[in-house]
């Protein structure tokens, strides 16, 4: 996959209309993980528009996003920055060849020490 194809794949997985973004920054204004992120939520959208795919793939922020969807909730233009972050995360994971876990693998690894937030975010991610 070349850079352009990767960009297109991220866009497809994200399922959001990035051109609707008006660069208002409200998503980043709301994000609880903002301070931990090297690339901020609004920049995920902006970088994808500009085709800065490599920067997205190198991002540390994808591991800090809580998938809380607050950005999606707040966006006045109906853009889903989290959708883009999620798509980058998925793309990176796929590129690493670790295509996640199968359904049967889940019960054994869920124990009382697993943060609830992780489970909630997993449901949100995988029930689409």
């Amino acid at each position, binding site marked *: 996959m070349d850079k352009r194809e990767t960009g297109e794949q991220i866009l497809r997985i994200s399922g959001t*209309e990035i*051109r609707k973004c008006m*660069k208002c920054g409200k998503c980043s204004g709301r994000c609880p993980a903002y301070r931990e992120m090297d690339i901020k939520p609004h920049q995920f959208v902006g970088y994808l528009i500009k085709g800065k795919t490599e920067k997205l793939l190198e991002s540390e922020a994808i591991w800090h996003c809580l998938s809380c969807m607050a950005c999606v909730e707040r966006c006045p233009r109906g853009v889903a920055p989290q959708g883009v972050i999620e798509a980058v995360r998925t793309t990176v994971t796929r590129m690493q060849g670790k295509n996640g876990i199968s359904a049967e693998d889940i019960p054994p690894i869920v124990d009382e020490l697993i943060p609830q937030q992780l489970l909630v975010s997993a449901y949100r991610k995988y029930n689409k």
Partner: protein
Amino acid sequence: MQRIGVFICWCGSNIAATVDVERLAQLIKAEPGVVFSADYQYMCSENGQQLIKNAVKDYNLTGIVIGSCSPRMHEATFRKAAESVGLNPYMVEVANLREQCSWIHKDREEATKKALVLLRTAIAKVRLDAPLTAGESPVVKRALVIGGGIAGIQAALDIAEAGFPVDIVEKNPTIGGRMAQLDKTFPTLDCSACILTPKMVDCAQNENIDILSYSEVEDVKGFVGNFKVRIRRKARYVDETKCTGCKVCMEKCPSKKGLNEFNMNLNNRTAIYIPFAQAIPNVAVIDPTQCLKLKTGKCGVCQKFCGAGAIDYTMQDTFVEREYGAIVVATGFRPINVDAFNEYGYSDNKDVITSLELERLMNAAGPTNGVLLRPSDNTHPKVITFIQCVGSRDVSGCGKPYCSKICCMYTAKHAMLIREKYPDTEVHVFYIDVRTPGKNYDEFYRRAVEQYGVDYIKGMVGKVWNENGKLMVQGADLIENEQVVIPSDLVVLATAIEPEPSVRKIATLLTASIDTNNFLNESHPKLRPVESPTAGVYLAGVCQGPKDIPETVSQASACAAKVIGLLVKNHLKTNPCVARPDETACNGCSQCANVCAYGAITYVDKEFRIGGGKTETRRVAQVNPAVCQGCGACTVTCPSGAMDLSGFSTAQILSEVEAICRK
């Protein structure tokens, strides 16, 4: 001695809560001249007014003072009430106990004390009031519109529709203004000519409209209702009544090097020309700076070929004098000169153009027949970069401090039209802000981004240079926090607009005030936005401030309504509170005329008896009461104290000051 009645209003609790109105009514009885006083909940109400009227009759009052809200609010109400029972309305004074007392104070005792002083002050003034009568002046039922752009056209059509004759004086050979140069118009993208030219034709066909094209206002005398205007009709060298607009002359004329100003000098035209196919009037004009016959005496080709015999090389400027009741100024704008901004390289690169030039390059009737070709080599530009705010919002001295208001929208329009017509073109827009207030305006701009994929970059351009035929545009992308360089084929500058410079002369002739940017001032920015402070002068279109076509047309129609409201009157009541010179004291120094913003003061030579049977002739000031606005600037300027203001005489003001200072 005046018999004065004092009426104190509670204004519900507005005044009464802070001022002890009842005590005030008692205290004020002690003032010399006061024969009656009362307080009431709402003086302006039917009952309150009746109370005043009864007292005037019962106590034979010769003057009254109302302690109430601001005179701006109800002075007219109370004057009318007084007049209805035979008291001269100018014998009524209002002491502002609300805005100037109860609303701004908390302490009841102090506020009551101050209210007493305010009442005493008004009483002091009433004592010296004299009955005044408003004069009358007749109204000439004809309007003048200066400038035949869309503003002037709309104003003229509306006035003519109401049945009044209107003259449009247009300095160019045709009416239409800037709108005639535009390709398509936001926010609906309809073709400019398709919506403008029918209106131009309407003007030509309307019996009430007389178009004086290629003409300029030379002199204005008079005042509201009675302007006398001298108009120069520049020599066209073509008889307007004979020319049929066949354009044979244009085909034959050998002088083809004149710059085509209608096409923003992007191509050339013949010495004899009609600016564009739909020109009104559709009559040729000879440019004397280009015509061989007029310059060297040799040629005369157009005369030979003109079947109508319309060419007349001996034509001279002529003058017409007409009278008008009202004048609409609609002189419009031009783009500023951007040479001073050398960072954009406008003067060095043919492919750096202004937005108005782009309009011509995209217009089917333009120099390229509507095919977008870049000026340097007539090729299709593949990458086009727009720069917004060029020369606007700039206090460096090179540009203008204001926002030109229209450029965000027309840049979005240009970007969209280009992407629509040439989808393979890459379009970038550098912006500081995207300002799109207006019905369907933001939606319009968003369409450029979302539907047409125009790349908007937040930041300004700092440098444009030519590198092997590419225009390198270097600017900031403030959102990505980086500097970007975009190799472009065409650079379009969304250039600031400024008032057409000849407006300065018009403003001087009309004594209409103008701001530091040469925009004409309105009488009140919110409540009288289409009136000039000079009575009888109205403002339409960009001459008053940057605006687009919808706003221009609204303002023009508003102007027309104001003009019609004036012209339906047979006479105008004049404000009697105007300046009056004491001729015996006036030494004719002209200082008063210099400060009068309305041009109300003139001078006459008058004979005065100086004793011993002798007379002397002296130059003395005269005030035209129809023009004077009673501002009082002259009274404080006059070094000999010869000017006074009826209703606000110096003696009255001083007695008011005295009343305030009294212990």
